[in-house]
């Protein structure tokens, strides 16, 4: 099941081969020369990254390479020490998760970041509840919306009354994804989106990513495993020791070359080297 889906995607890639991403305008988001350190350790050191509408950028690197930290700066969870974030060519002020959401930046965290003790609808609308005219929670309206969006993502989902603790890993994942796309996200960050999923659910996520691309949403896929994301991405960016090793269009590099970037920090010919590239 999984292999057919992956083959489909690969077929799509070979027929087109060039990505038809329009990179003429300003990028959807650009992170420029971002640094952050925790107690003297440079978790991210002068990293730059950009993303265009309808593009899927895979951010790769070992555990501890700084990719999650970099992306948490974009989603407002961490405050950067230096650097700029530009959204659609304009300087953006992002100092907390609420700011990021105001710019249409939505994040699906590796931990999913769900409140386990409340139900799916409460999680979908957490921080952005629908209220009645009397200023009380409109649970019925929220459940109705939840049923709509979950019906699109996971038609078999029926457990709207149970706390999300009781749900399976895949169901929890679809709740987290639903929360991210419910509010017209323009930029979607997915941190290890398929790490906890079975083959069937992984294929579902792949389908979803293709669908979101059509809607001109830009997507960051973060992973330490190249196999998870290589076939889904238009571009790969590799980080090592808090620095960007380099970036390349996925069609210009092979998996082995990208692995070389991840493990050795060695930039192949098809890639644009970054500050973290191995000097030889």
């Amino acid at each position, binding site marked *: 099941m999984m292999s057919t889906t992956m083959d489909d995607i690969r077929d799509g890639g070979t027929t087109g081969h060039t990505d038809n991403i329009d990179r003429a305008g300003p990028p959807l988001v650009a992170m420029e020369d971002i640094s952050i350190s925790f107690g003297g350790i440079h978790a991210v050191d002068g990293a730059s990254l950009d993303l265009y509408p309808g593009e899927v950028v895979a951010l790769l690197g070992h555990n501890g390479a700084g990719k999650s930290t970099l992306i948490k700066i974009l*989603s407002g*969870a961490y405050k950067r020490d230096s650097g700029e974030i530009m959204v659609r060519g304009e300087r953006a002020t992002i100092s*907390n*998760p*609420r700011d990021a*959401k105001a710019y249409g930046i939505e*994040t699906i*965290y590796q*931990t*999913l*970041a*769900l*409140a*386990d*003790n*409340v139900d799916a609808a*409460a999680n979908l609308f*957490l*921080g*952005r*509840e629908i*209220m009645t005219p009397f*200023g*009380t*929670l409109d649970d*019925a*309206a929220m*459940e*109705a919306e939840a049923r709509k969006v979950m019906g699109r993502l996971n038609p078999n989902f*029926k*457990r709207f*009354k149970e*706390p999300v*603790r009781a749900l399976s890993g895949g169901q929890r994942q679809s709740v987290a994804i639903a929360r991210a796309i419910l509010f017209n996200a323009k930029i979607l960050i997915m941190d290890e989106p398929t790490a906890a999923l079975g083959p069937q659910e992984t294929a579902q996520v792949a389908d979803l990513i293709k669908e979101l691309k059509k809607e001109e949403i830009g997507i960051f896929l973060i992973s330490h495993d190249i196999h998870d994301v290589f076939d889904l991405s238009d571009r790969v960016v590799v980080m090592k020791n808090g620095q960007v090793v380099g970036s390349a269009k996925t069609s210009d590099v092979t998996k082995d070359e990208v692995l070389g970037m991840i493990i050795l920090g060695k930039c192949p010919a098809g890639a644009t080297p970054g500050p973290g590239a191995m000097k030889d």
Partner: protein
Amino acid sequence: MSDVASGGAVRPKTAGGGSGFKNFLRATEIDTRMLGMVGALLVIWVGFHILSGGTFLTPRNLWNLSVQTASVGVMATGMVLVIVTRNIDLSVGSVLGVTGMIMAIAQTTWFTPMFGFDNPMVWIATIGLGLLSGLAIGGLQGFVIAYMGVPSFIVTLGGLLVWRGAAWWVASGRTIPITDDTFKILGGGSDGSIGATWSWVIAIVAIAFLALAAVNARRQRKRFHFPVKPMWAEYLTFALSAGAVVVATLIVNAYLLPGPLAARYAQANGIAVPEGGLAISFGYAVPVLLFIGVGIVMTFVARRTRFGRYVFAIGGNPEAAELAGINTKRVTMMVFALMGMLAAIAAAISTARLTSATNAQGTLDELYTIAAAVIGGTSLAGGAGTIAGAMLGALVMQSLQSGMVLLGMDTPLQNIVVGAVLVVAVWLDTVYRKRAA
């Protein structure tokens, strides 16, 4: 859409299996934990009734029980939210003590001279000042916990000493009597009860409210085509809750003013005393109504407001709440401010009941409050708990205590029993949770 037709049997996990009783519970949506608590309460009541030779389940004792529960019960509703956010408040007994003292001193030294004896402004100003003090004390502790990052256990442990000391210090150890008669109504007693007629009015309003709520909930669910309870279950839950209201009203109305008090009442109101004496009912005590009112408001806050939703989300996963854009620090501070205000309400009740403020007022109440919340199903791991459960928990704790007093048990033995019951109750709850999960 097809869910609507199949009614109560939509939940796929349990459909088909389960005994008749389980299906019954599912259809009526009765919380099994609450059912267990009511069961435990009934066992305690009947047990004491038998052991005490028939003095426990009397209108008089049950009425007293309701008044005694009010003060700790009011605080337990706030303690639920504190514990749900993975915090604890050890200072509530001392905050009760200091706010009670502030109210008594302000009333006797400022408000009564300022407005005149028994002027309505006296009790209004007294309560207003009390609530503000509670809010400020709780807010201050909340600020230190949320924004300065000191664990709530330490902050409120400090508060336990600080506020008890403050109460002692302002009053120089004296007992301060309160003078305003209207304020004393908050404490219950014959003047602080509403009588038979008003008790029935309240009962009818409550039943009408229950009916309205049931109809409204059903209409909401139909509007969005969600599954609804079967009709018989709607009627049954309504009948049970309305029946409970009627029984409670009958009990408080069956408690009659003792002879001399009734005679004085008749004289004061110009009623002729008929043959065989007057039958004047106490009816609901004002502090009990206040307790129930606080419970309703707190349930509303917990379940229907954004603040309540955030409190539970923070308890379930603080990091997720933060990432969802919730200002978790502000919510935490507000929870403690609310707790402080509830301690002040409890202080008003207990000060009015004792008609004076003392140093020792509220001593150990923090432990009874926490115990009530925990017995009522509030999880110390955070994220789970109900206001109604804590209110029942307070009633269970108080029933145990007054039952043992009624049996003439010695104080050390009482403490041993209460302590042991707390541990056993939480153990049972842990077992229940493991099985439910």
